[in-house]
């Protein structure tokens, strides 16, 4: 390349060029490499969770299918479409940054932020549903419902309503006991839940797999006690699914929030007209990040929401 000894007094110098770079091309290349390095480590960051998913799903496929069928697939699908649209608007924002069109850039960044916010809103609705249904895997983080009065008999059970956490008590109180009135089919949770425990009683998919004879070895150990299907043991495996669901979607949502913060900053800069056809690297790098987060969701959606739909049941 040509000789360039800090000669910007003499010839045209692009406004966005940092002094330690030879020219814009070299600077752009370095920006991209840095961003891709970051994204590669992000792949490994999410990859750890995908590995956890892989291991546990291969061990307990039916518990995963049962938990997955309980998620609202239409909300997941709607959110997938929302993210895809936001990816398009982001790509177009980069496009118009490349063309140096400030107004379109600003509009598209705002649109991207709106769709990102819609995604997080839907996610919040889903999390709230889980809270109301008693399937948040953390004890105490579910909606605490009172026991219907005719069922309260022992003073110990009354004590537990004070909310004091005595581990010895929790061993004796039948948490998640099913109310009379029968809610056999999955999804309907008519339980009392004094302590906000994780609750799950639907073992139909495990029964199905047992009848059809495709239980894995780990499932034969993991769901059964004394040769009988054990609802509590099955529940604990479904709970693993919901741990993974919340960890993965939670980490993804965190990335969305960071993405929105990034977009706010970008919006401010774009509003001030900082990006021209020659210098738009921040828009492009934010775009790479946004698309990466979209890609993670492209995989999360079928893996979390759709994995057991073909077994029937659910809703």
């Amino acid at each position, binding site marked *: 390349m040509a000789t360039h000894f800090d000669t910007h007094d003499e010839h045209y110098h692009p406004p966005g060029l940092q002094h330690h770079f030879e020219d814009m091309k070299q600077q752009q290349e370095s920006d991209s490499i840095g961003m891709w390095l970051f994204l590669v480590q992000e792949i*490994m960051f999410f990859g750890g969770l995908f590995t956890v998913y892989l291991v546990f799903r291969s061990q307990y496929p039916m518990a995963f299918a049962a938990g997955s069928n309980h998620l609202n697939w239409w909300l997941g699908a709607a959110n997938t479409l929302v993210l895809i649209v936001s*990816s398009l608007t982001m790509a177009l924002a980069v496009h118009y940054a490349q063309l140096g069109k400030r107004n379109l850039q600003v509009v598209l960044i705002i649109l991207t932020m709106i769709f990102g916010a819609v995604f997080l809103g839907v996610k919040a609705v889903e999390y709230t549903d889980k809270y109301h249904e008693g399937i948040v895997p953390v004890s105490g983080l579910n909606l605490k419902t009172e026991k219907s009065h005719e069922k309260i008999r022992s003073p110990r059970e009354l004590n537990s309503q004070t909310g004091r956490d005595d581990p010895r008590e929790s061993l004796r109180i039948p948490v998640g006991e099913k109310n009379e009135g029968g809610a056999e089919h999955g999804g309907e949770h008519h339980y009392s839940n004094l302590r906000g425990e994780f609750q799950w009683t639907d073992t139909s998919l495990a029964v199905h797999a047992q009848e059809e004879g495709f239980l894995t070895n780990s499932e034969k150990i993991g769901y059964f006690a004394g040769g009988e299907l054990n609802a509590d043991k099955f529940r604990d495996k479904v709970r693993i699914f919901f741990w993974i669901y919340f960890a993965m979607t939670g980490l993804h949502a965190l990335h969305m929030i960071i993405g929105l913060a990034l977009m706010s900053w970008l919006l401010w800069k774009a509003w001030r007209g900082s990006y021209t*056809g020659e210098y738009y690297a921040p828009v492009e790098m934010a775009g790479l990040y946004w698309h990466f987060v979209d890609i993670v969701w492209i995989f999360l959606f079928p893996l979390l929401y759709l*994995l057991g739909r073909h077994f029937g049941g659910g809703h």
Partner: protein
Amino acid sequence: MDDKDLRHQPDQNSEHHSDDENHIVSLPLYMMVFGVLVVGTILTVAVAFIDLDHIFPGANTLVALSIAFFKMTCVVLIFMHVRWSSRLIWLMAIAGFFWLAIMFAFTMQDYLTRSSGTFTG
């Protein structure tokens, strides 16, 4: 500042107009990728409700992941401009997934080869 096309200002390295200089993707191509992503999503949902596991166990998951992989490839190549990027960027994108594959493979070669032991309920 108004809408100005600053791209056509003098450019000091216009002598090498080769592979990866500020390639501007055409709008129809963006729209096409968008269409593919939407159709892929609808297809993913539709296929999930059909029982393909009768063909072979795990067929449903395989189809779902294949569609997801195809969607990802579209996003990476077009939206993320890797298609017009340097070899080094290609290398990084591929290396990321290669290392991920190593993590999956080495983990599963352990878990899938464990015997169930003597704990049979």
